């Protein structure tokens, strides 16, 4: 960040992850990224049996699929108050990609539509990972975030 530039804040859960990463050395950041990879939940059956419902993120070096659900918040609520649910699928041979997905899932799942859409597009660069995994590889996470936001917009009509 350039001094004087206004930085759009991250949602609380994502910010906490960013601070956890920031406190670590580059090597330990990789270990934490591996924890996120290991912890990425399996797809629920309604998706694992229906791969066609998932969107492929082509920008990732390894195949990653994702799908967003927007849960209605009831009649009185505005579209922006609906809850976002995130589901990802990536093979175990692609741990970096899985790790990126794990961060986004832990940081964004359960937020409202409005909160997800407000996540700054440069969020992937705030985990100190460029140094640990190289900036080129981080592009996959940027693409995941932009596709998540696009699906949220589409499915919430926000």
């Amino acid at each position, binding site marked *: 960040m350039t001094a004087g530039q206004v930085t759009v804040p991250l949602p609380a859960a994502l910010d906490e992850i960013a601070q956890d990463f920031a406190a670590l050395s580059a090597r330990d950041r990789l270990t934490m990224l591996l924890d996120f990879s290991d912890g990425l939940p399996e797809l629920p059956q309604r998706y694992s049996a229906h791969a066609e419902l998932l969107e492929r993120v082509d*920008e990732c*070096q390894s195949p990653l699929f994702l799908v967003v659900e927007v849960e209605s918040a009831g009649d009185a609520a505005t579209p922006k108050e609906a809850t976002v649910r995130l589901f990802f699928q990536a093979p175990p*041979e692609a741990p970096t990609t899985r790790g990126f997905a794990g961060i986004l899932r832990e940081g964004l799942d359960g937020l409202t539509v409005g909160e997800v859409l407000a996540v700054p597009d440069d969020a992937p660069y705030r985990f100190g990972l460029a140094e640990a995994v190289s900036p080129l590889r981080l592009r996959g996470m940027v693409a995941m975030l932009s596709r998540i936001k696009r699906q949220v917009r589409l499915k919430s009509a926000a």
Partner: protein
Amino acid sequence: MAVAVDANRKFTDYAHPERLVSTGWLAGRLADGTVGTRNLVVLESDEDVLLYDTGHIPGAVKIDWHTDLNDPVTRDYVNGERFAQVLGERGIGRDTTVVIYGDKSNWWAAYALWVFTLFAHEDVRLLDGGRAKWVAEGREITREVPSQLPVDYPVVERNDAPIRAFKDDVLAHIGQPMVDVRSPGEFSGELLHMPDYPQEGAMRGGHIPGARSVPWARAAAEDGTFKSRADLEAIYLTEQGLAPSDDVVAYCRIGERSSHTWFVLTHLLGFEKVRNYDGSWTEWGNAVRVPIEVDAK
């Protein structure tokens, strides 16, 4: 101190059998305690920077093409000081035998081996079949990272000229043997990037004029091992009409798949002068006013 070569019969047919080891040979060196000593260091070099961390061959140390072998600022390889540091901290001395293996049929392992060759590290070998073969055979995998005792590796000046071609070298080389190892769609100009890798695209599609299309994977068997010498000769000599005395340039997109072909031509078939053009299509396809050939539709 170099470690004895793998006497595997498949390898003895190759021009330089000492450049390959089998999974069985490596398992033997693990069992006799040679791996991780000053005599033998095993490196894993993958496309995915975290794959090693999910589990690797016991005693193996990670080396990453991006963060360890590429300069962080200039598009180039690391210099002699940095190379000495990267190897030294992995317990590698100038006379250590290094065995490299990796994912994706050893693309990145071959790439690392090629970079080691820029620094003239003498004894560097590939594990035939790479990571996938070791795993498929149900051999031991661990997450335990070995603690290597740092070793002094000398600062050696990189010598690019014999095995590395730059854009101007390639321009001057047009008309002489050139091998494009990308997928057929990338070669024809139909695709601006490798299938599944759009982030490494180019402004223009096609190939360098006169280049022959020989996708890298033709040199690999189903299980990721290298094909036999006879099978490789049928492709590169008989079908493509290349001769071991030819001056050959190989390229792909960023130089990793062509490292695989460079290894095949140089070490398995004994070609005397093969250069890898690591700028490859991400440079040529974006460069201003270089000639390009596109296949007629």
